[in-house]
């Protein structure tokens, strides 16, 4: 299973609060989210790579009209949240929830801010699933 570079395995690492992507053993290209096939050279000879969790915020928004899944987490117009795109130290960019920023003063959040990986747990016991988030470093 650990040799399958799937969403299921990626999620199981997130549940351990670890951020792992895949790396092409041949040319060292790194992928986050993990991919089973390197689109540049079609190599499928991959290995898992644990990311440092360091990165910079490249783009963000404060969501006031939330999708159903986020409404169920308690977010709405009165309780908006930040989501963004982070460029990891290793290179790839990833979409993630952004914690610990002043959502009511979005102009204070700056593109280029150094961030570090964090994790959000939703559900309990067997149903617990961790999601990737970042927060200012």
């Amino acid at each position, binding site marked *: 299973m650990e040799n399958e570079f799937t969403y299921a395995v990626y999620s199981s690492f997130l549940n351990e609060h670890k951020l792992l992507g895949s790396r092409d053993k041949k040319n060292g290209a790194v992928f986050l989210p993990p991919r089973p096939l390197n689109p540049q050279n079609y190599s499928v000879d991959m290995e898992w790579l644990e990311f440092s969790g360091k990165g910079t915020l490249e783009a963000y928004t404060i969501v006031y009209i*939330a999708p159903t899944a986020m409404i169920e987490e308690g977010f709405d117009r009165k309780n908006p949240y930040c989501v963004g*795109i982070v460029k990891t130290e290793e290179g790839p960019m990833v979409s993630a929830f952004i914690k610990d920023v002043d959502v009511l003063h979005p102009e204070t959040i700056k593109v280029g801010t150094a961030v570090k990986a964090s994790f959000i747990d939703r559900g309990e016991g067997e149903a617990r699933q961790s999601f990737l988030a970042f927060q200012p470093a």
Partner: protein
Amino acid sequence: MSTKKLARGVALVGAGMSKFGAFKGKTSRDLFVEAFVEMLASVDKPFDPKSVDALYVGNYSSDLFENQGHTAPIMASWVGLTPIPAVRVEDACASAGVALREGILAIASGLCDIVVVGGVEKMTDLPTEKVTDTLATAADSQFEIPAGFTFPGFYAAMATSYMAAYGATPETFMKVGIKNHNHGSLNEKAQFGAKISTLMEVRKASAAKKGLPIPEWKDELEFLKDERANPIIAWPMRLYDCSPVSDGAAVVLLVSEELAAKFSDHPIFVAGVGQASDGALHDREELNSIPSARLAGQKAYEMAGIQPKDIDFAEVHDCFTIAEIIASEDLGFFEKGEGWKAAEAGETASSGKKPINLSGGLKSKGHPVGASGVGQVVEVWKQLRGQAGERQLPGKLKFGLTHNVGGTGQTCVVHIFERRD
């Protein structure tokens, strides 16, 4: 790589659309019939619909919006086109633009001579949050949506990247909305065909009537900056930065170039076609430009043998106001980072040097997602033939361009149309 050409030419000889809006009690097929009937009336010379060889229908998600799959044969049946091949094309909000390209390719291949291409979407039966969820399926449901992204959110994030790189402000985006509502106020098919200034006066009058304090907005920008009038959807995108949830359909008639004169006194020719694909937003080199749009535009210009400066006017995919600014750069109308300045200077208004979205765009006209790509073509058809009424661009027009984006740019399709007579 050498420039690819169509194996034979294709002409646009008819175009029609339903009104765009929220139509309780009307389903996709009703709207499609409305558009089809207007298309028939637009063909200059007598034409028998039974001679059509194939139907292509752009539709994003009738499955989730209306609990109806297998949509294309239903449309064929309701407009009297069965038993010809009927094909549904889905590439999110670019579904109709891509359906158009498929119709063009069918004629260019020699297998078809006469093709009907349409687009249709019925979105307003679902509550807003279900519409949001349905649209979200056009993004990456494993790696984007669980993070908390919504479609307004994606474009809002692109806007923060654009603002940080080039200095635009949320006010810039508001000005795009004001411009498109000005254009849409002259379009009888528009869902929100009122100027922002008119909407502002309506709000004032409504407050006065209810005996409430009358808001003191001194101009449209002040109105748009007021959270009560223009709430944030996904910062910096506010309500009036977002295209609406819409019902609507649009239909065009394509024939091979050699048949064009048999159908039309003033046919419009397909000069260039370009389409490209891409991965999720976070998988791209940059977040304030749409690479698939640049590539699709480049291919279309090459096929047409023209430059961006040759385009007289364009209908671009302004699903959000920031998207229009990015499109104006991706299509080469303005240098990278300059599009917002051009928008602020009025260069993209009907009176400017590069008019964009004379129809009102998706913002004012409405955005029935699977119909929008063909809806854009209806405007180009009218403008190039001098039939756009009050919003007709003056002077002799030769080239009109349409730019239709799926998702955040996982798909983009660009068409260039030419009037030769």
